[in-house]
């Protein structure tokens, strides 16, 4: 998967120069493009939308004020993310939240990708093989491109357990590489993959219901 993150595009020099010059148009563009991603990261540390939004604003304030200290030893994205996670953690501490990100529930980790009913049982001819197989989606998946499907998917993503939502959002919506997601959310590579897998599997199931339901 290619990286399409606006903070990882190799335009660091130009972006940093624009920030240093106080270029408002360039700043607004950057702000708008990165906002959903930054809020997703913040929501890895704090519970409420409102607090996450505050954390993003505070991060930009610190970035704009401190951009002269950015020396290009890390990428601009890494630098901004480190400010973001520090801001989020300090909120986390201030509000004495009882649950750090890494301990929010199981993240649905025990749920299988596909319900066991869809596979043949041990006493059937091909145990563990599909009993109710997936039906191919037409290509290109036209139905998936509809506004309705997009809304369904968006809702389903929003309803995933917090950790799955953060990982799937950052990886698949924002296009961040796995290592960066592990970094900003403080996850082991294994945990990152498990959360990604659970989240994606659940979303595939939602789309399957949508596509098959619409076909019927």
């Amino acid at each position, binding site marked *: 998967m290619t990286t399409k993150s606006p903070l990882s595009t190799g335009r660091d020099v130009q972006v940093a120069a624009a920030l240093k010059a106080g270029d408002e148009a360039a700043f607004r563009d950057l702000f708008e493009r990165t906002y*959903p991603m930054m809020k997703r990261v913040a929501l890895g540390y704090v519970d409420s939308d409102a607090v996450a939004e505050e954390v993003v604003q505070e991060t930009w*304030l610190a970035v704009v*004020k401190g951009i002269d200290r950015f020396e290009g030893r890390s990428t601009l994205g890494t630098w901004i993310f480190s400010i973001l996670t520090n801001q989020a953690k300090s909120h986390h501490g201030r509000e004495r939240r009882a649950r750090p990100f890494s301990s929010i529930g199981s993240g649905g980790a025990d749920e299988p990708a596909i319900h066991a009913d869809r596979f043949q049982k041990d006493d059937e001819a091909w145990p563990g093989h*599909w009993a109710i197989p997936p039906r191919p989606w037409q290509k290109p998946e036209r139905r998936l491109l509809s506004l309705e499907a*997009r809304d369904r*998917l968006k809702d389903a993503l929003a309803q995933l357990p917090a950790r799955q939502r953060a990982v799937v959002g950052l990886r698949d*919506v924002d*296009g961040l590489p796995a290592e960066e997601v592990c970094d900003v959310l403080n996850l082991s590579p294994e945990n990152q993959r498990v959360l990604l897998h659970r989240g994606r599997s659940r979303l595939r199931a939602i*789309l399957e219901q949508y596509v098959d339901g619409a076909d019927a």
Partner: protein
Amino acid sequence: METGSDRPNPMDHSGPPPDGASVGDANSVPDEVVCEEFVELVTDYFEDALPPRKLSHVEEHLVLCDWCRTYLDQMQATIGALGGLGERALAEPSESVLAALRSRQETDGR
């Protein structure tokens, strides 16, 4: 739902049945991946995180099983659809952020 009426049985090949007849000694990793296991390995497969032996079993399974290839396609389509959800924020920078930015313009334009 009738399965496989118009499609070949996924395991309809000349080899041994998936269970009971696997080659190799009792200590070895099972030689076959069945569909129920495959659907849990898809992400590790995409992420290149499968150990070599598991990877070859997954690839063998994919050669034989149309349904799991369909499943793989659907996971890929799901990832693709998620990539289309990116959007700009409706949010605006706060007044204090904009003020800090404007104060940079002043120092910069000296």
